[in-house]
């Protein structure tokens, strides 16, 4: 029997942080915590406590799986930078897990979703949102296959795209902070919004997906681990808008 590959999973993209790892019997141990504030940044102490709870030594880790977004910038920076440091020190690989896939896995494993298709809504901003539509597929590296390429959409763009007109059978995974107008439209096209909001993505889901990706060879050297940015920096957008306005005035 091959030795257990110990993957440390970190989920810090949302409003609840968590870390997870399998113990020597293969059972998942997870610790959840409030993200840090001005007085305390809990990630590393939580990881330390997790390894003790799972009776695992640092040098027993095989990889670090991280939920890479889209999500809160602060949490992603902390988790990805810490993962880079851990992986570099231990000489192990990292596994980037798209947060939307972790959300789909969380929803599926919590029985919030019964079907095999999930439409995850993340990173809403100014009438747009990140939409990632996936379906269960045991042949896919992560266990989930894209139904459509993930990306940023506005309601107007969705209305004019034929691929979004029939969402019957899709569970729409969106928390209370996502764009209401877009969610209403997805619902009007047959999407079933998960009742009562959605469970947050968990490190357990990141662990499960990360283990699949690692087994499929989808790991990265820690130098290449980066967040999944849904948009360019806002300052760049503003700058481009300002220079375009100046050019118009000048012409």
């Amino acid at each position, binding site marked *: 029997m091959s030795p257990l590959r110990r993957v440390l999973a970190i989920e810090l993209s949302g409003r609840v942080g968590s870390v997870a790892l399998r113990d020597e019997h293969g059972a998942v141990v997870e610790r959840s915590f409030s993200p840090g504030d001005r007085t305390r940044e809990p990630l590393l102490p939580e990881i330390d406590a997790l390894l003790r709870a799972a009776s695992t030594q640092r040098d027993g880790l095989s990889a670090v799986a991280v939920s890479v977004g889209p999500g809160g910038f602060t949490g992603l*920076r902390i988790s990805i930078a810490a993962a880079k440091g851990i992986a570099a020190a231990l000489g192990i690989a990292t596994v980037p897990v798209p947060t939307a896939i972790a959300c789909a896995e969380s929803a599926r494993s919590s029985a919030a979703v019964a079907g095999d298709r999930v439409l995850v809504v993340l990173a809403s901003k100014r009438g747009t949102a990140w939409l990632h539509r996936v379906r269960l597929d045991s042949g896919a590296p992560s266990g989930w296959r894209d139904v459509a390429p993930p990306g940023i959409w506005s309601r107007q763009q969705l209305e004019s795209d034929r691929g979004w007109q029939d969402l019957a059978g899709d569970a729409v995974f969106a928390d209370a902070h996502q764009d209401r107008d877009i969610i209403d439209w997805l619902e009007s096209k047959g999407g079933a919004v998960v009742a009562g909001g959605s469970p947050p993505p968990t490190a357990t889901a990141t662990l499960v997906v990360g283990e699949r990706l690692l087994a499929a060879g989808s790991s990265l050297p820690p130098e290449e681990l980066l967040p999944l*940015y849904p948009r360019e920096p*806002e300052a760049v957008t503003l700058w481009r808008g300002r220079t375009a306005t100046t050019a118009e005035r000048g012409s």
Partner: protein
Amino acid sequence: MLILGIESSCDETAAAMVEDGVRVRSSVVASQHELHRTYRGVVPEIASRAHLERILPVIHEAAREAGCELRDLDAVAAGIRPGLIGSLLVGTSAAKGLAWALDRPFLGVDHVEAHLFAGLLESTPPPWPALGLVVSGGHTSLFHWSGGRLRRLGRTIDDAAGEAFDKAAAMLGIPHPGGPGLERMAHGGDAAAVRLPRAMLGRESLDFSFSGLKTAFRLAVLAAGDAGDPAADVVAVGSTLANSTKSDLAASFERTVVETIVAKCVRALELAEQAGNPFRSLVLGGGVVANTSLRQAMLALADEADLEARLPPPRWCLDNAAMIAAAAHARAVDGDQDDLAIPAEPLSAWS
């Protein structure tokens, strides 16, 4: 004792290996100036994205240059304040991850304090107490430094000297970062061409103020360009001035800043003398200390006041990680370390 220092407070990603607090085995700095030049200043979101891309390559390069492995480290240190919070989080979190995985102490360092330690790198300790001066883009502060304990004597009440340099440079159309460009522009200019105000803030004050100077410089640029409207676009006016006029303005500005800083240091020396606890040395740090006129003026002051001077070479005046490791060493030798839950903070303990 070998310490890895990491610095990511603004737009430089840096790592250094320093032995026993003074011997710099490597110091690697990846500057982001090119990324921010278009925007005429540091864009926080662009800076933190770049830090995440560069942090490990910079650390690996520092280890390679030092000829050591990460497991050879005795401690890991990072600048945890002050700075852009999104940038600080990258260096701090990577450093904590390294320290935890290597099972080594982690030390969080105040960047302002670290600038003073830059003056002690590759050097011997100065006689104490020292008059410490940090002049950078974010800070202009005077300290009483007894070797261990640091006590602030004065600080800027508005803009830092380096910030004033950058803003003045921008008014003359000099691209970011403007301080070094303004210094080059000042070379050959007439420093007496334009009379600019020196804010002394009262006879006993050791505080600084540069916002009035900035405003006065703006008006001087507009006057030089014959712009009658005080609300005119100063960058547009300043950019089109003749080079000789720009040089005169730059030289006048530089001299005003240098003379203001020297005057405050003289006052601090006098007050210490009067109190019967004279300073025995002068330790400088911060990006503006790379300015040749300031260096010459401070060396002259040290000579005149019979003080030993410790000025870091220009490469260690700018943000770097060697100074972070050196500052951490002073605590690590006593067995001190920080909890891994210590947060990054935007403000210095000395703000």
